[in-house]
């Protein structure tokens, strides 16, 4: 009796087990099919994503590069090419004359050198002052250091015109804050306004530089600094021997941005130099008129436009060269500064 029921159970068991196994096998097969299909779908999805991505990247790049390319192409054209409706991107009468004329009209070597000197002065001073201030408020605890930091951020939200217009008056009748007799001396049309505001870390967007460098110094390990103190280094020695070398990526970023913004600056340059002096900016503004031998009537001509385009290329060429060499620093700049945490 016992064995009989036993075999019955066994048979039933084997039957159900077999059914289950078949079921499972079936399921596995179906899964495989589905996987194959989904892999195929994924492949299609991947390809279409890359196509959409390529279209997006090419479109945006076109919009960014188009004005630059157009200037570059125009600068190699003759006036006849401009009027020729069939000429679009490739000049029919390729010429370097525009560069020869514009180079001379802008007095390029001199104006380039003056601009470079002013830009280097400003960016090096800003680099030194902003780094020092950022180190002071980022690394030392003293009463008011949070307050000083908030002042630096505050300088960013005040429109620059609101400060520079009264400032230019102060520089025009500069009495050294009462030390010199009225009406004082005029510092306008000299490097002094630039030097004074850069050396004291209140130049163009210096609040941003202080902010970035402060984040940078705050993120540096404490042990390094303490080890230097234990070894008997003073505060300043620790700063330039230990902390500064560690902050080089941040310093490069500050310097590059300061350089580019100063080179491109239109605002301080026209207010403090009142449009005078032999700088690239003034040279570019006057280039077309000079190339036309002072004939105002032709300023709206196509030829004047070609000269202006050539001048703009000459103006931004040094920055493009700088960017070509330093692009890695620009592009990785924000990761390096750890501004986002």
């Amino acid at each position, binding site marked *: 009796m016992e064995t009989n029921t036993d075999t019955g159970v066994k048979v039933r068991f084997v039957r159900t087990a077999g059914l289950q196994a078949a079921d499972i096998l079936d399921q596995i097969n179906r899964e495989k099919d589905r996987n194959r299909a989904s892999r195929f779908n994924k492949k299609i999805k991947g390809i279409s994503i890359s196509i959409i991505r390529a279209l997006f990247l090419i479109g945006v790049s076109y919009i960014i*590069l188009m004005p630059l390319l157009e200037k570059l192409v125009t600068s190699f054209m003759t006036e006849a090419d401009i009027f020729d409706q069939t000429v679009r991107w490739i000049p029919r009468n390729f010429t370097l004359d525009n560069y020869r004329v514009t180079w001379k009209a802008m007095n390029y070597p001199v104006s380039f050198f003056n601009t470079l000197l002013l830009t280097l002065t400003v960016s090096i001073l800003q680099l030194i002052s902003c780094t020092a201030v950022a180190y002071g408020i980022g690394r030392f605890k003293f009463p008011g250091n949070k307050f000083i930091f908030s002042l630096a951020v505050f300088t960013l*939200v005040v429109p620059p*015109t609101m400060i*520079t217009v009264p400032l230019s008056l102060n520089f025009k009748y500069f009495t050294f804050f009462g030390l010199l007799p009225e009406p*004082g001396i005029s510092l306008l049309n000299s490097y002094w306004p630039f030097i004074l505001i850069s050396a004291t870390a209140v130049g163009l967007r210096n609040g941003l530089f202080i902010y970035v460098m402060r984040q940078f110094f705050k993120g540096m390990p404490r042990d390094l600094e303490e080890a230097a103190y234990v070894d008997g280094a003073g505060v300043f020695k620790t700063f330039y021997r230990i902390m500064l070398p560690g902050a080089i990526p941040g310093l490069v970023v500050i310097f590059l941005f300061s350089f*580019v913004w100063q080179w491109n600056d239109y605002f301080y340059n026209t207010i403090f130099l009142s449009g005078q002096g032999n700088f690239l900016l003034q040279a570019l503004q006057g280039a077309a008129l000079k190339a036309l031998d002072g004939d105002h009537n032709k300023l709206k001509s196509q030829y004047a436009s070609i000269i*202006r385009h050539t001048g703009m290329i000459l103006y931004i060429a040094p920055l493009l060269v700088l960017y070509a060499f330093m692009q890695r620093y620009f592009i990785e700049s924000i990761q390096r500064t750890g501004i*986002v945490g």
Partner: protein
Amino acid sequence: MKKRLSFKQRRILAGYLFSLPFLLGFTLFFFYPFIQAFIFSFNELVISREGFVLNFKGFDNYGYILNVHPDFLRIFVETILDTITNVPLVLAFSFFAALVLNQRFKGRFLARTIFFLPVILSAGIIIQMDIDDMVTQLLHGARNAELIFTGVGLRNLLMNTKLPEGFIEFILGAVDRIPDIIRASGIQILIFLAGLQSIPPSIYEAADVEGATGWESFWLITFPMMSPIILTNAVYTIIDTFLTTTNEVVMLVRDEAIMGAGYGVSMAMAVLYFVMILIILGITIKVSSRWVFYQE
């Protein structure tokens, strides 16, 4: 006998010493002119050879710029409206661009190089000359292929679709803005990229194991993790648009001081502008702080 300073005292002293340049600069070349700007805005400023004299005029300058000045109110309102429309568009574009540039693909470095190029090419003088040149080109009617491409062509295309006219104008306006938006997004893209890379990959892996789709992990991980950076970027974009030196109000203030109605009027404009920027920044931070997610 001179007492040696303790370590703590020396560090306090060093902190002040390092901050000294900024304290000087802030007082002399920032705060002093800042106060002067307020004072000037209530005065008429007369310049003579010996310096300048102030004649108190009360709120006359403000009355003048709001009621009499031909351009100020229009440019002021236009700038605000422009900024309010541009900021969300710049944020959306740069966020999307950063998501794309964060993917792995061939030519990624080149794409990043190009996308960041506008930061280098943002010279005020070039922008100014381009605008002048555009006018010249239009007068001559030559080489306006771009205008035909975006303006007329698209307009004809849309007119044929029989959509409401207001909607068509909106689309055309948005299309006109595209180049400006793209060119204003360089630094924002960098900030977003850095933010995207700071999200630990382990969170995405965990989500993947739990069966989350890419769509879900974007809205439930990427977006909340990026929200503080979106706020940072929003503030940066607002400041950048309002204070960039090619901004129309900024230019107007400068021109008015040097060759227009004088320093008093110019500073009254600057003060109004400053107050407006503070209000807009305040609203932005107040509104957005509700949905910003902080990990800590």
